[in-house]
């Protein structure tokens, strides 16, 4: 049982990284990015492409790091020139555009890389383990993922609570009109938020590609996990998203333990139960 819990927590670390970008974009501009999972996979393939382009000369970690600023710029441009045009009361345009992007990405990746699953070679790191007392051992990579997840969550929380940029995010999300009255350029603020979200997406993609194989059609499932983590945890709080991701990871592991075919299904069911019993999530941040 303890092993299941530990595996669940480690999985939750990964799901946190899937979900943080989604939480950020929705929090700042009420935009639901249905291509979230596909962008994560795109990030993974970007690293894979980068690794194959540089041969064996550059370590995968460095390639992943190099992808981050590219992701930042890409996210900024995407929001500024495409997604900003879809914002408004009607959720349909942003949904259709991001859904369309999802299809475009999946098929583009299919064309460029074929349907075969690929992975990022970490030189054995993905199989290394640390003994944790008794007969249990945990993988080094999952621990690294968890650590990154914790750092990312803390960093986002700090950014929002203590910096001027974070203040603009909160202001523009509260009341766009008055924020613009103060002198903020909402379009640029939104673009910044998405840029940061895409850095998180790239990190998540790189780690996913290192821990397991990725293939072009993996995106949608990751989106659902990210979404479930955000809802279970409660909207408005990044630590809430982390908690939600942990719970999701643990429930899935419990499900896998009971029957390998039902793991993901179990996670979905728990999500639906939380939705029915406590739709605001377990740790929502209440607004004044």
């Amino acid at each position: 049982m303890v092993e299941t819990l530990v595996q669940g927590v480690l999985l939750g670390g990964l799901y946190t990284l899937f979900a943080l970008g989604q939480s950020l974009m929705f929090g700042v501009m009420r935009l639901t990015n249905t291509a979230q999972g596909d962008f994560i996979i795109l990030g993974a393939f970007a690293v894979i492409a980068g690794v194959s382009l540089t041969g064996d000369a550059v370590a995968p970690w460095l390639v992943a790091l190099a992808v981050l600023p590219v992701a930042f710029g890409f996210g900024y441009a995407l929001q500024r020139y495409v997604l900003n045009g879809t914002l408004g009361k009607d959720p349909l345009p942003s949904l259709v555009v991001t859904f369309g992007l999802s299809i475009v990405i999946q098929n583009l990746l299919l064309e460029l890389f074929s349907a075969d699953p690929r992975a990022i070679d970490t030189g054995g790191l993905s199989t290394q383990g640390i003994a944790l007392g008794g007969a249990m051992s945990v993988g080094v990579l999952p621990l690294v993922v968890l650590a990154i997840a914790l750092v990312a969550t803390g960093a986002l929380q700090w950014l929002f609570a203590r910096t001027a940029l974070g203040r603009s995010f909160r202001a523009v999300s509260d009341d766009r009109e008055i924020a613009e009255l103060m002198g903020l350029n909402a379009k640029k603020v939104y673009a910044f938020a998405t840029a940061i979200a895409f850095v998180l997406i790239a990190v998540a993609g790189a780690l996913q590609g290192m821990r397991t194989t990725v293939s072009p059609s993996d995106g949608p499932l990751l989106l659902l996990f990210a979404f479930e983590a955000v809802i279970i945890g409660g909207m408005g709080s990044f630590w809430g998203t982390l908690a939600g991701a942990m719970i999701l990871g643990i429930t899935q592991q419990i499900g896998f333990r009971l029957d390998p075919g039902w793991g993901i299904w179990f996670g979905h069911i728990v999500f639906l139960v939380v939705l029915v019993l406590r739709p605001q999530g377990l740790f929502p941040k209440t607004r004044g």
Partner: protein
Amino acid sequence: MTALLSTHALKAFYGDAQALFGIDFSLVQGELVAIIGANGAGKSTFLKSLTGLVRAPREAIEFKGRPIGGLPPGDIVRQGLAMVPEGRRLFPSLSVEENLLMGATAARRGPWNLQRLYALFPILAQKRHQPGTSLSGGQQQMVALGRALMSNPEVLLCDELSLGLAPIVIREIYAAMPTITGEGMTVVIVEQDVTMARQVSQRIYCFQEGRVSLEGDSGDLTREQISQAYFGIEAAHG
């Protein structure tokens, strides 16, 4: 004296509905002008047009000699025209101090900063880290006013400062006016409370159904003139 801020035949629409039918307005530096009128007369719409929240034709509004109609709100506040919006509209996710800091986004030079504001409204210093919207109505109004002052504007527009507040609180807020205008700031107040408007202002405009129905020095206008202009009732012929 040349007008600091003026409008000429300003029209404004909400979709297909016309709210302003041609407003002529002018303001010289250092004045405190009041705009009065019933609900729906177009007072708030007028202020929103000035600050860029409602579209206006370019040449219809002039500020410091330059046309500003239709500019984005950010540009207008950076030029020195700030507004305290109707209903306060503080940011619920921000603390009192953070709300005030948002006002400084325009980064204009001037005498107003956090310290000075806390000296003017000491209660805000006490509650600086509390969420903005957890304060009482009057205190929130102080925050909203302070937030606009933080941009160090040349012209301050105040939309219904007294809305929903008890008389004693209204007096408290208007007691701060002399400090604000003392250094030459030009102020426009939109007020439902006609008595208060006549007391604090030098000139009054009365709006009625999207038009200026009366304009004059506060001291010269009679109560009867104002009532008639306010309600749009034609003078009875004797």
